[in-house]
Protein backbone atom coordinates (compact mmCIF):
# COMPACT_ATOMS: atom_id res chain seq x y z
CA UNK A 1 0.00 0.00 0.00
CA UNK A 2 3.08 2.19 0.07
CA UNK A 3 2.54 3.49 -3.43
CA UNK A 4 -0.94 4.73 -2.72
CA UNK A 5 0.28 6.60 0.33
CA UNK A 6 2.95 8.29 -1.73
CA UNK A 7 0.35 9.33 -4.26
CA UNK A 8 -1.85 10.86 -1.56
CA UNK A 9 1.07 12.64 0.01
CA UNK A 10 2.16 13.94 -3.36
CA UNK A 11 1.87 17.66 -3.61
CA UNK A 12 2.94 20.37 -5.98
CA UNK A 13 4.28 23.65 -4.73
CA UNK A 14 2.38 26.49 -6.29
CA UNK A 15 3.39 30.08 -6.48
CA UNK A 16 0.40 32.28 -6.83
CA UNK A 17 0.74 35.60 -8.51
CA UNK A 18 -0.86 38.81 -7.35
CA UNK A 19 0.94 38.00 -4.16
CA UNK A 20 4.16 36.07 -3.71
CA UNK A 21 2.46 33.31 -1.79
CA UNK A 22 3.51 29.73 -2.05
CA UNK A 23 1.23 26.91 -1.05
CA UNK A 24 1.20 23.19 -1.45
CA UNK A 25 -1.60 21.82 -3.56
CA UNK A 26 -2.38 18.10 -3.22
CA UNK A 27 -2.07 16.21 -6.49
CA UNK A 28 -5.31 14.39 -5.91
CA UNK A 29 -7.20 17.59 -5.10
CA UNK A 30 -8.77 20.30 -7.18
CA UNK A 31 -7.69 23.91 -7.56
CA UNK A 32 -10.90 25.69 -6.41
CA UNK A 33 -10.53 23.96 -3.05
CA UNK A 34 -7.52 26.17 -2.43
CA UNK A 35 -9.78 29.23 -2.27
CA UNK A 36 -9.97 29.24 1.50
CA UNK A 37 -6.17 29.12 1.68
CA UNK A 38 -5.74 31.95 -0.79
CA UNK A 39 -8.52 34.35 0.12
CA UNK A 40 -6.77 35.78 3.19
CA UNK A 41 -3.88 36.92 1.01
CA UNK A 42 -6.07 38.73 -1.45
CA UNK A 43 -9.13 39.92 0.40
CA UNK A 44 -7.70 43.37 0.92
CA UNK A 45 -6.94 43.86 -2.74
CA UNK A 46 -10.25 42.70 -4.17
CA UNK A 47 -12.89 45.20 -5.28
CA UNK A 48 -16.41 44.70 -3.91
CA UNK A 49 -18.45 42.04 -5.66
CA UNK A 50 -18.93 38.32 -5.90
CA UNK A 51 -15.80 36.21 -6.00
CA UNK A 52 -15.54 33.21 -8.28
CA UNK A 53 -12.09 31.74 -8.17
CA UNK A 54 -10.31 30.48 -11.25
CA UNK A 55 -6.70 29.94 -12.28
CA UNK A 56 -4.64 30.29 -15.39
CA UNK A 57 -1.24 29.01 -16.42
CA UNK A 58 0.45 31.03 -19.14
CA UNK A 59 -2.88 32.49 -20.09
CA UNK A 60 -4.65 29.14 -20.33
CA UNK A 61 -7.69 28.98 -18.01
CA UNK A 62 -7.39 25.80 -15.97
CA UNK A 63 -10.24 23.30 -15.97
CA UNK A 64 -11.15 23.01 -12.32
CA UNK A 65 -12.64 19.53 -12.54
CA UNK A 66 -9.34 18.00 -13.62
CA UNK A 67 -7.24 16.98 -10.59
CA UNK A 68 -4.41 19.38 -9.83
CA UNK A 69 -1.70 16.76 -10.36
CA UNK A 70 -3.05 15.89 -13.80
CA UNK A 71 -3.08 19.53 -14.86
CA UNK A 72 0.51 19.86 -13.75
CA UNK A 73 1.67 16.70 -15.54
CA UNK A 74 -0.14 17.74 -18.68
CA UNK A 75 0.70 21.41 -18.95
CA UNK A 76 4.18 21.57 -17.46
CA UNK A 77 6.42 19.59 -19.79
CA UNK A 78 9.42 20.32 -17.67
CA UNK A 79 8.05 20.21 -14.15
CA UNK A 80 8.25 23.71 -12.72
CA UNK A 81 8.72 23.89 -9.01
CA UNK A 82 7.00 25.98 -7.83
CA UNK A 83 4.35 25.95 -10.50
CA UNK A 84 3.55 29.55 -11.36
CA UNK A 85 -0.17 30.09 -11.57
CA UNK A 86 -2.24 33.24 -11.71
CA UNK A 87 -5.35 33.29 -9.57
CA UNK A 88 -8.43 35.32 -10.50
CA UNK A 89 -11.47 36.18 -8.46
CA UNK A 90 -13.45 37.97 -11.14
CA UNK A 91 -14.04 37.72 -14.86
CA UNK A 92 -14.83 34.03 -14.91
CA UNK A 93 -14.34 32.73 -18.49
CA UNK A 94 -17.78 31.17 -18.84
CA UNK A 95 -17.39 30.29 -22.49
CA UNK A 96 -14.35 28.15 -21.81
CA UNK A 97 -14.90 26.80 -18.32
CA UNK A 98 -18.07 25.28 -16.97
CA UNK A 99 -19.36 27.24 -13.97
CA UNK A 100 -17.93 26.59 -10.53
CA UNK A 101 -20.00 27.61 -7.56
CA UNK A 102 -17.33 26.79 -5.03
CA UNK A 103 -16.78 23.62 -3.04
CA UNK A 104 -20.22 22.21 -3.87
CA UNK A 105 -19.54 22.18 -7.59
CA UNK A 106 -16.25 20.39 -7.07
CA UNK A 107 -17.86 17.87 -4.74
CA UNK A 108 -20.60 17.02 -7.23
CA UNK A 109 -18.16 16.79 -10.07
CA UNK A 110 -16.19 14.31 -7.96
CA UNK A 111 -19.29 12.29 -7.05
CA UNK A 112 -20.37 12.16 -10.69
CA UNK A 113 -16.95 10.90 -11.71
CA UNK A 114 -17.16 8.31 -8.96
CA UNK A 115 -20.58 7.21 -10.26
CA UNK A 116 -19.17 6.93 -13.73
CA UNK A 117 -16.27 4.82 -12.46
CA UNK A 118 -18.68 2.63 -10.52
CA UNK A 119 -20.75 2.12 -13.63
CA UNK A 120 -17.69 1.15 -15.60
CA UNK A 121 -16.51 -1.38 -13.02
CA UNK A 122 -19.76 -2.79 -11.73
CA UNK A 123 -22.22 -2.14 -14.53
CA UNK A 124 -24.32 0.15 -12.35
CA UNK A 125 -23.90 3.13 -10.01
CA UNK A 126 -26.17 1.82 -7.28
CA UNK A 127 -23.49 1.59 -4.63
CA UNK A 128 -22.59 5.26 -5.02
CA UNK A 129 -26.22 6.39 -5.35
CA UNK A 130 -27.14 4.50 -2.19
CA UNK A 131 -24.38 5.96 -0.08
CA UNK A 132 -25.67 7.52 3.10
CA UNK A 133 -25.37 11.30 3.34
CA UNK A 134 -22.85 10.99 6.12
CA UNK A 135 -20.72 8.48 4.21
CA UNK A 136 -20.77 10.68 1.15
CA UNK A 137 -19.70 13.69 3.18
CA UNK A 138 -17.01 11.72 4.95
CA UNK A 139 -15.66 10.43 1.67
CA UNK A 140 -15.63 13.91 0.18
CA UNK A 141 -13.93 15.41 3.20
CA UNK A 142 -11.30 12.71 3.13
CA UNK A 143 -10.49 13.71 -0.44
CA UNK A 144 -10.54 17.42 0.38
CA UNK A 145 -8.25 16.96 3.35
CA UNK A 146 -6.06 14.27 1.83
CA UNK A 147 -6.94 11.82 4.57
CA UNK A 148 -6.03 8.44 3.07
CA UNK A 149 -7.07 6.36 6.08
CA UNK A 150 -10.60 7.71 6.16
CA UNK A 151 -10.82 7.49 2.39
CA UNK A 152 -9.85 3.84 2.37
CA UNK A 153 -12.28 3.01 5.16
CA UNK A 154 -15.27 4.71 3.54
CA UNK A 155 -14.50 3.77 -0.06
CA UNK A 156 -14.09 0.09 0.79
CA UNK A 157 -17.75 0.12 1.86
CA UNK A 158 -18.60 0.91 -1.75
CA UNK A 159 -17.33 -2.49 -2.83
CA UNK A 160 -16.12 -1.08 -6.08
CA UNK A 161 -14.59 -3.93 -8.00
CA UNK A 162 -10.98 -3.03 -8.42
CA UNK A 163 -8.65 -4.86 -10.72
CA UNK A 164 -7.12 -7.86 -9.03
CA UNK A 165 -3.48 -8.38 -9.39
CA UNK A 166 -0.91 -10.56 -7.79
CA UNK A 167 1.07 -7.70 -6.39
CA UNK A 168 -1.46 -5.69 -4.45
CA UNK A 169 -4.96 -6.26 -3.24
CA UNK A 170 -7.07 -3.37 -2.14
CA UNK A 171 -9.62 -5.33 -0.16
CA UNK A 172 -9.63 -8.79 1.36
CA UNK A 173 -10.48 -11.35 -1.27
CA UNK A 174 -13.55 -12.56 0.60
CA UNK A 175 -15.41 -9.29 0.43
CA UNK A 176 -14.23 -8.55 -3.08
CA UNK A 177 -17.00 -8.55 -5.62
CA UNK A 178 -16.19 -10.21 -8.87
CA UNK A 179 -16.41 -7.69 -11.62
CA UNK A 180 -17.32 -7.63 -15.26
CA UNK A 181 -19.34 -10.09 -17.17
CA UNK A 182 -19.70 -13.73 -16.27
CA UNK A 183 -20.11 -16.61 -18.61
CA UNK A 184 -22.55 -19.43 -17.98
CA UNK A 185 -20.23 -21.17 -15.52
CA UNK A 186 -20.30 -18.06 -13.34
CA UNK A 187 -16.63 -17.31 -13.95
CA UNK A 188 -15.66 -13.68 -14.18
CA UNK A 189 -14.38 -13.12 -17.70
CA UNK A 190 -13.73 -9.51 -18.41
CA UNK A 191 -13.75 -6.24 -16.63
CA UNK A 192 -13.62 -2.59 -17.51
CA UNK A 193 -11.17 -0.15 -15.97
CA UNK A 194 -11.96 3.60 -15.82
CA UNK A 195 -9.30 5.58 -17.64
CA UNK A 196 -8.99 9.22 -18.68
CA UNK A 197 -6.28 9.92 -21.19
CA UNK A 198 -4.99 13.37 -22.08
CA UNK A 199 -2.83 13.76 -25.19
CA UNK A 200 -0.76 16.74 -26.14
CA UNK A 201 1.21 16.85 -29.34
CA UNK A 202 4.47 18.35 -30.49
CA UNK A 203 5.79 18.48 -34.01
CA UNK A 204 9.47 18.02 -33.39
CA UNK A 205 11.91 16.49 -30.99
CA UNK A 206 13.17 18.60 -28.16
CA UNK A 207 16.38 18.06 -26.28
CA UNK A 208 15.05 19.95 -23.34
CA UNK A 209 11.49 19.63 -22.19
CA UNK A 210 11.74 23.26 -21.18
CA UNK A 211 11.91 24.24 -24.85
CA UNK A 212 8.61 22.61 -25.69
CA UNK A 213 5.92 25.05 -26.71
CA UNK A 214 3.41 25.72 -23.96
CA UNK A 215 -0.16 24.60 -24.45
CA UNK A 216 -2.15 27.71 -25.27
CA UNK A 217 -5.53 26.19 -25.97
CA UNK A 218 -7.56 23.23 -24.79
CA UNK A 219 -8.42 22.53 -28.40
CA UNK A 220 -4.90 21.23 -28.82
CA UNK A 221 -5.38 18.55 -26.22
CA UNK A 222 -7.18 15.29 -26.99
CA UNK A 223 -9.23 14.00 -24.13
CA UNK A 224 -10.13 10.35 -24.28
CA UNK A 225 -12.56 9.19 -21.64
CA UNK A 226 -12.77 5.51 -22.40
CA UNK A 227 -12.67 2.40 -20.25
CA UNK A 228 -10.07 -0.27 -20.93
CA UNK A 229 -11.44 -3.77 -21.27
CA UNK A 230 -9.27 -6.47 -19.74
CA UNK A 231 -9.49 -10.22 -19.36
CA UNK A 232 -9.12 -11.44 -15.82
CA UNK A 233 -6.95 -14.40 -16.75
CA UNK A 234 -4.48 -12.24 -18.56
CA UNK A 235 -1.95 -11.59 -15.82
CA UNK A 236 0.49 -10.20 -18.36
CA UNK A 237 -1.65 -7.30 -19.44
CA UNK A 238 0.69 -4.34 -19.34
CA UNK A 239 0.39 -0.58 -19.44
CA UNK A 240 1.63 -0.86 -23.00
CA UNK A 241 -1.27 -3.17 -23.87
CA UNK A 242 -3.73 -0.75 -22.33
CA UNK A 243 -2.36 2.17 -24.33
CA UNK A 244 -2.51 0.15 -27.52
CA UNK A 245 -6.22 -0.25 -26.97
CA UNK A 246 -6.81 3.41 -26.17
CA UNK A 247 -4.62 4.98 -28.82
CA UNK A 248 -3.76 2.30 -31.38
CA UNK A 249 -2.87 5.06 -33.81
CA UNK A 250 0.35 5.65 -31.85
CA UNK A 251 1.61 2.11 -32.24
CA UNK A 252 2.37 1.75 -35.90
CA UNK A 253 4.82 -1.14 -35.64
CA UNK A 254 2.21 -3.70 -34.60
CA UNK A 255 0.06 -3.34 -37.67
CA UNK A 256 0.18 -6.97 -38.68
CA UNK A 257 -0.39 -8.55 -35.32
CA UNK A 258 -3.03 -6.54 -33.60
CA UNK A 259 -3.66 -8.17 -30.27
CA UNK A 260 -5.98 -6.58 -27.81
CA UNK A 261 -6.21 -8.42 -24.53
CA UNK A 262 -5.74 -11.73 -26.24
CA UNK A 263 -8.17 -11.37 -29.12
CA UNK A 264 -6.67 -11.60 -32.57
CA UNK A 265 -8.01 -9.49 -35.37
CA UNK A 266 -8.43 -12.51 -37.65
CA UNK A 267 -9.92 -14.67 -34.91
CA UNK A 268 -12.36 -11.98 -33.96
CA UNK A 269 -13.97 -12.16 -37.36
CA UNK A 270 -14.57 -15.88 -37.00
CA UNK A 271 -16.09 -15.92 -33.52
CA UNK A 272 -19.74 -16.93 -33.80
CA UNK A 273 -22.14 -14.50 -32.25
CA UNK A 274 -23.60 -16.67 -29.51
CA UNK A 275 -23.36 -14.42 -26.55
CA UNK A 276 -24.42 -10.85 -27.20
CA UNK A 277 -22.26 -9.36 -24.51
CA UNK A 278 -19.12 -11.04 -25.74
CA UNK A 279 -20.17 -9.89 -29.19
CA UNK A 280 -19.78 -6.36 -28.00
CA UNK A 281 -16.33 -7.06 -26.62
CA UNK A 282 -15.31 -8.66 -29.87
CA UNK A 283 -16.84 -5.85 -31.86
CA UNK A 284 -14.93 -3.28 -29.91
CA UNK A 285 -11.69 -5.14 -30.45
CA UNK A 286 -12.44 -5.42 -34.13
CA UNK A 287 -13.23 -1.78 -34.23
CA UNK A 288 -9.95 -0.99 -32.49
CA UNK A 289 -8.08 -3.01 -35.05
CA UNK A 290 -9.98 -1.27 -37.82
CA UNK A 291 -9.29 2.16 -36.39
CA UNK A 292 -5.70 1.15 -35.92
CA UNK A 293 -5.17 0.23 -39.53
CA UNK A 294 -7.00 3.29 -40.78
CA UNK A 295 -5.12 5.59 -38.47
CA UNK A 296 -1.81 4.02 -39.38
CA UNK A 297 -2.32 4.86 -42.97
CA UNK A 298 -3.08 8.43 -41.97
CA UNK A 299 -0.30 9.12 -39.53
CA UNK A 300 2.08 6.24 -39.17
CA UNK A 301 4.83 8.25 -37.61
CA UNK A 302 3.01 9.48 -34.52
CA UNK A 303 5.38 8.62 -31.73
CA UNK A 304 4.85 8.56 -28.01
CA UNK A 305 7.42 10.76 -26.32
CA UNK A 306 6.28 10.82 -22.75
CA UNK A 307 3.79 9.12 -20.50
CA UNK A 308 3.03 10.57 -17.08
CA UNK A 309 0.86 9.20 -14.34
CA UNK A 310 0.85 10.91 -10.94
CA UNK A 311 4.02 12.71 -11.92
CA UNK A 312 5.99 9.59 -12.68
CA UNK A 313 6.93 8.03 -16.01
CA UNK A 314 6.13 4.35 -15.57
CA UNK A 315 7.77 1.70 -17.70
CA UNK A 316 5.36 0.35 -20.25
CA UNK A 317 6.04 -3.24 -19.23
CA UNK A 318 4.54 -2.74 -15.78
CA UNK A 319 1.38 -4.80 -15.27
CA UNK A 320 -1.59 -2.57 -15.90
CA UNK A 321 -3.35 -3.87 -12.81
CA UNK A 322 -0.53 -2.57 -10.60
CA UNK A 323 -0.68 0.83 -12.28
CA UNK A 324 -4.43 1.06 -11.76
CA UNK A 325 -4.48 -0.10 -8.17
CA UNK A 326 -1.68 2.16 -7.04
CA UNK A 327 -1.89 5.25 -9.20
CA UNK A 328 -5.60 5.83 -9.60
CA UNK A 329 -7.21 8.99 -8.25
CA UNK A 330 -9.82 9.04 -5.48
CA UNK A 331 -12.49 9.07 -8.20
CA UNK A 332 -11.29 5.57 -9.17
CA UNK A 333 -10.12 6.84 -12.52
CA UNK A 334 -6.61 6.36 -13.80
CA UNK A 335 -5.56 9.67 -15.38
CA UNK A 336 -2.81 9.30 -17.96
CA UNK A 337 -0.99 12.18 -19.68
CA UNK A 338 0.70 11.39 -22.96
CA UNK A 339 2.95 13.54 -25.11
CA UNK A 340 3.11 12.47 -28.72
CA UNK A 341 5.16 13.69 -31.61
CA UNK A 342 3.26 14.04 -34.85
CA UNK A 343 4.53 14.73 -38.33
CA UNK A 344 4.37 18.33 -39.48
CA UNK A 345 1.09 19.07 -41.19
CA UNK A 346 1.32 20.78 -44.57
CA UNK A 347 -2.17 22.10 -44.31
CA UNK A 348 -4.39 22.45 -41.26
Amino acid at each position, binding site marked *: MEAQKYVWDGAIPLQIHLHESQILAPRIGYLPLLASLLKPYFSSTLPPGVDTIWFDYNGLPLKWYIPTGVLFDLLCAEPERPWNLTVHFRGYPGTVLIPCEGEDSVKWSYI*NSLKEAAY*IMNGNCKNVMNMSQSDQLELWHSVMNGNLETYQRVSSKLKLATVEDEHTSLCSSKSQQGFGETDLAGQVKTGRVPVRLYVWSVSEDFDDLEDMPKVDSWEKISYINRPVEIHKEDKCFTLHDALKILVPEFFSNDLMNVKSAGVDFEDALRIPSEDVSSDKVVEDHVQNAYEHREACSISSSAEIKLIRIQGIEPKLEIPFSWVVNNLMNPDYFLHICVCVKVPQQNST
Partner: protein
Amino acid sequence: MMDLLHWDGTLSAKDFRIGAVAFAQKWESLNFAFPPWVWVPCPKHPWLASPEEEGYLSMEKICISRLNEEDIDQTTQIDTDEEEASCSGNKDVIDDATLVQRNHHELHYYDFHIVYSNTFRVPVLYLRAYCSDGQPLQLDEIEKELPTCSSKELSKSKWTFITQEEHPHLKRPWYKLHPCGTGEWMKLLFLNDTAQPKFEVVLELYLLSWFSVVGQVVGLRIPFKMLNDR
Protein backbone atom coordinates in the same frame (compact mmCIF):
# COMPACT_ATOMS: atom_id res chain seq x y z
CA MET B 1 -28.94 -14.98 -33.37
CA MET B 2 -29.24 -12.33 -30.78
CA ASP B 3 -30.98 -13.07 -27.56
CA LEU B 4 -32.76 -10.00 -26.24
CA LEU B 5 -32.90 -11.49 -22.78
CA HIS B 6 -29.12 -11.42 -22.48
CA TRP B 7 -28.73 -8.04 -24.08
CA ASP B 8 -27.97 -5.26 -21.62
CA GLY B 9 -29.56 -2.54 -23.69
CA THR B 10 -26.27 -0.93 -24.70
CA LEU B 11 -24.46 -0.37 -27.98
CA SER B 12 -20.88 -0.54 -29.17
CA ALA B 13 -19.42 2.60 -30.72
CA LYS B 14 -19.67 1.02 -34.15
CA ASP B 15 -23.32 0.11 -33.60
CA PHE B 16 -24.03 3.66 -32.50
CA ARG B 17 -22.72 4.94 -35.81
CA ILE B 18 -24.90 2.48 -37.73
CA GLY B 19 -27.89 3.27 -35.56
CA ALA B 20 -27.30 7.00 -35.96
CA VAL B 21 -27.37 6.78 -39.74
CA ALA B 22 -30.55 4.70 -39.59
CA PHE B 23 -32.12 7.17 -37.18
CA ALA B 24 -31.31 10.18 -39.32
CA GLN B 25 -32.77 8.49 -42.37
CA LYS B 26 -35.92 7.40 -40.58
CA TRP B 27 -36.39 10.84 -39.07
CA GLU B 28 -36.25 12.45 -42.45
CA SER B 29 -38.54 9.90 -44.08
CA LEU B 30 -41.16 10.35 -41.38
CA ASN B 31 -41.54 13.92 -42.49
CA PHE B 32 -41.54 15.75 -39.22
CA ALA B 33 -41.78 19.46 -39.00
CA PHE B 34 -38.26 19.35 -37.60
CA PRO B 35 -35.06 19.75 -39.60
CA PRO B 36 -33.00 16.63 -40.27
CA TRP B 37 -30.36 15.20 -37.93
CA VAL B 38 -26.90 15.64 -39.40
CA TRP B 39 -23.94 13.37 -38.70
CA VAL B 40 -20.91 15.48 -37.77
CA PRO B 41 -17.61 13.59 -37.99
CA CYS B 42 -15.18 14.46 -35.27
CA PRO B 43 -11.45 13.84 -35.17
CA LYS B 44 -10.10 11.94 -32.19
CA HIS B 45 -7.03 14.15 -32.18
CA PRO B 46 -6.74 17.71 -33.51
CA TRP B 47 -4.05 16.70 -35.99
CA LEU B 48 -5.62 13.46 -37.21
CA ALA B 49 -8.01 13.38 -40.13
CA SER B 50 -11.28 12.10 -38.89
CA PRO B 51 -12.36 8.60 -39.77
CA GLU B 52 -16.09 8.57 -40.38
CA GLU B 53 -16.69 6.37 -37.36
CA GLU B 54 -16.32 9.02 -34.73
CA GLY B 55 -18.79 11.82 -34.53
CA TYR B 56 -22.21 12.80 -33.29
CA LEU B 57 -25.70 13.68 -34.52
CA SER B 58 -26.72 17.31 -34.62
CA MET B 59 -30.01 19.12 -34.95
CA GLU B 60 -29.75 22.81 -34.35
CA LYS B 61 -31.66 26.06 -34.11
CA ILE B 62 -34.87 24.48 -32.94
CA CYS B 63 -37.44 26.85 -31.62
CA ILE B 64 -39.05 25.16 -28.63
CA SER B 65 -42.19 26.93 -27.83
CA ARG B 66 -44.77 27.06 -25.09
CA LEU B 67 -48.42 27.67 -25.89
CA ASN B 68 -50.49 30.36 -24.34
CA GLU B 69 -53.91 29.12 -23.36
CA GLU B 70 -55.54 30.79 -26.34
CA ASP B 71 -53.12 29.47 -28.89
CA ILE B 72 -53.44 25.79 -28.07
CA ASP B 73 -53.69 24.80 -31.71
CA GLN B 74 -50.59 26.57 -32.83
CA THR B 75 -47.28 24.81 -33.04
CA THR B 76 -43.91 26.01 -34.07
CA GLN B 77 -40.95 24.80 -35.99
CA ILE B 78 -37.89 26.53 -37.18
CA ASP B 79 -36.45 26.48 -40.64
CA THR B 80 -32.87 25.44 -41.03
CA ASP B 81 -32.40 28.77 -42.74
CA GLU B 82 -31.96 31.02 -39.77
CA GLU B 83 -32.98 34.16 -41.58
CA GLU B 84 -36.51 33.01 -41.98
CA ALA B 85 -37.89 32.43 -38.54
CA SER B 86 -41.11 31.14 -39.94
CA CYS B 87 -43.72 29.58 -37.76
CA SER B 88 -45.94 27.23 -39.67
CA GLY B 89 -48.72 25.37 -38.01
CA ASN B 90 -49.21 21.67 -38.37
CA LYS B 91 -51.18 20.34 -35.46
CA ASP B 92 -51.13 16.72 -36.59
CA VAL B 93 -47.40 16.43 -36.40
CA ILE B 94 -46.51 17.83 -33.02
CA ASP B 95 -48.69 17.79 -30.01
CA ASP B 96 -47.70 19.41 -26.78
CA ALA B 97 -45.25 21.73 -28.48
CA THR B 98 -45.39 25.08 -26.86
CA LEU B 99 -44.44 28.61 -27.65
CA VAL B 100 -42.39 30.78 -25.41
CA GLN B 101 -42.94 34.34 -26.19
CA ARG B 102 -41.85 36.90 -23.75
CA ASN B 103 -43.47 40.29 -23.75
CA HIS B 104 -40.97 41.47 -26.29
CA HIS B 105 -41.46 38.34 -28.43
CA GLU B 106 -38.15 36.82 -27.44
CA LEU B 107 -37.65 33.44 -29.07
CA HIS B 108 -35.40 30.79 -27.65
CA TYR B 109 -33.37 28.45 -29.79
CA TYR B 110 -32.05 25.02 -28.94
CA ASP B 111 -29.22 22.96 -30.34
CA PHE B 112 -29.37 19.20 -29.75
CA HIS B 113 -26.50 16.80 -30.13
CA ILE B 114 -26.65 13.04 -29.70
CA VAL B 115 -23.24 11.88 -28.55
CA TYR B 116 -22.05 8.34 -27.80
CA SER B 117 -20.81 7.62 -24.30
CA ASN B 118 -17.95 5.13 -24.03
CA THR B 119 -18.66 4.74 -20.35
CA PHE B 120 -22.37 3.98 -20.48
CA ARG B 121 -22.32 2.61 -24.04
CA VAL B 122 -25.49 4.47 -24.91
CA PRO B 123 -26.41 7.70 -26.70
CA VAL B 124 -26.51 10.84 -24.57
CA LEU B 125 -28.46 14.01 -25.32
CA TYR B 126 -26.52 17.25 -25.10
CA LEU B 127 -28.29 20.56 -25.48
CA ARG B 128 -27.78 24.25 -25.28
CA ALA B 129 -30.16 27.14 -25.55
CA TYR B 130 -29.77 30.75 -26.57
CA CYS B 131 -31.65 33.87 -27.54
CA SER B 132 -31.81 35.24 -31.03
CA ASP B 133 -28.80 37.42 -30.28
CA GLY B 134 -26.76 34.36 -29.32
CA GLN B 135 -26.85 35.06 -25.59
CA PRO B 136 -26.85 31.66 -23.88
CA LEU B 137 -29.67 30.64 -21.56
CA GLN B 138 -28.93 29.49 -18.04
CA LEU B 139 -30.29 26.29 -16.60
CA ASP B 140 -33.01 28.04 -14.62
CA GLU B 141 -34.30 29.70 -17.77
CA ILE B 142 -34.24 26.41 -19.66
CA GLU B 143 -36.01 24.79 -16.73
CA LYS B 144 -38.95 27.14 -17.18
CA GLU B 145 -39.40 25.88 -20.71
CA LEU B 146 -39.23 22.20 -19.95
CA PRO B 147 -42.41 20.18 -19.49
CA THR B 148 -43.59 20.38 -15.87
CA CYS B 149 -42.56 16.86 -14.91
CA SER B 150 -39.04 17.51 -16.12
CA SER B 151 -38.68 20.71 -14.18
CA LYS B 152 -39.98 18.92 -11.08
CA GLU B 153 -37.36 16.21 -11.56
CA LEU B 154 -34.75 18.87 -12.08
CA SER B 155 -35.61 20.70 -8.89
CA LYS B 156 -35.47 17.45 -6.94
CA SER B 157 -32.01 16.45 -8.07
CA LYS B 158 -30.18 19.53 -9.21
CA TRP B 159 -26.92 17.81 -9.76
CA THR B 160 -27.84 14.56 -11.33
CA PHE B 161 -30.58 15.02 -13.88
CA ILE B 162 -29.40 17.74 -16.22
CA THR B 163 -25.82 18.71 -15.62
CA GLN B 164 -23.61 21.26 -17.27
CA GLU B 165 -20.54 19.55 -18.61
CA GLU B 166 -17.98 19.91 -21.27
CA HIS B 167 -19.17 18.72 -24.66
CA PRO B 168 -16.86 15.76 -25.39
CA HIS B 169 -16.11 16.96 -28.92
CA LEU B 170 -16.65 20.70 -28.91
CA LYS B 171 -15.02 21.24 -25.51
CA ARG B 172 -17.44 23.95 -24.54
CA PRO B 173 -19.99 23.97 -21.72
CA TRP B 174 -23.20 22.23 -22.76
CA TYR B 175 -26.09 20.74 -20.82
CA LYS B 176 -26.37 16.98 -20.74
CA LEU B 177 -29.14 14.58 -19.79
CA HIS B 178 -27.67 12.05 -17.42
CA PRO B 179 -27.47 8.65 -19.11
CA CYS B 180 -27.34 6.44 -16.02
CA GLY B 181 -30.06 3.80 -16.44
CA THR B 182 -30.49 4.24 -20.19
CA GLY B 183 -29.33 0.69 -20.96
CA GLU B 184 -31.91 -0.72 -18.59
CA TRP B 185 -34.93 1.07 -19.92
CA MET B 186 -33.84 0.59 -23.52
CA LYS B 187 -33.73 -3.15 -22.92
CA LEU B 188 -37.22 -2.99 -21.40
CA LEU B 189 -38.52 -1.03 -24.35
CA PHE B 190 -37.52 -3.80 -26.72
CA LEU B 191 -38.43 -6.66 -24.43
CA ASN B 192 -41.95 -5.34 -24.32
CA ASP B 193 -42.18 -5.69 -28.04
CA THR B 194 -44.02 -8.93 -28.75
CA ALA B 195 -42.46 -9.16 -32.17
CA GLN B 196 -39.03 -10.06 -30.67
CA PRO B 197 -37.04 -8.51 -33.47
CA LYS B 198 -33.58 -9.48 -34.70
CA PHE B 199 -30.68 -7.33 -33.54
CA GLU B 200 -30.40 -5.63 -36.91
CA VAL B 201 -33.93 -4.36 -36.49
CA VAL B 202 -33.28 -3.38 -32.89
CA LEU B 203 -30.29 -1.38 -34.01
CA GLU B 204 -32.27 0.36 -36.72
CA LEU B 205 -34.92 1.42 -34.26
CA TYR B 206 -32.69 1.94 -31.23
CA LEU B 207 -32.17 5.69 -31.52
CA LEU B 208 -35.72 6.43 -32.57
CA SER B 209 -37.04 4.55 -29.55
CA TRP B 210 -34.44 6.18 -27.33
CA PHE B 211 -35.33 9.63 -28.57
CA SER B 212 -39.05 9.04 -28.15
CA VAL B 213 -38.35 8.85 -24.41
CA VAL B 214 -35.53 11.30 -24.01
CA GLY B 215 -36.97 13.91 -26.36
CA GLN B 216 -40.00 14.24 -24.13
CA VAL B 217 -37.83 15.54 -21.33
CA VAL B 218 -37.01 18.56 -23.43
CA GLY B 219 -40.46 18.92 -24.90
CA LEU B 220 -39.92 17.16 -28.21
CA ARG B 221 -42.53 14.51 -28.75
CA ILE B 222 -42.72 12.01 -31.54
CA PRO B 223 -46.31 10.95 -32.27
CA PHE B 224 -46.70 7.28 -31.42
CA LYS B 225 -48.20 6.29 -34.72
CA MET B 226 -44.91 7.14 -36.36
CA LEU B 227 -43.06 4.86 -33.99
CA ASN B 228 -45.29 1.95 -34.82
CA ASP B 229 -44.79 2.37 -38.50
CA ARG B 230 -42.10 -0.19 -39.24
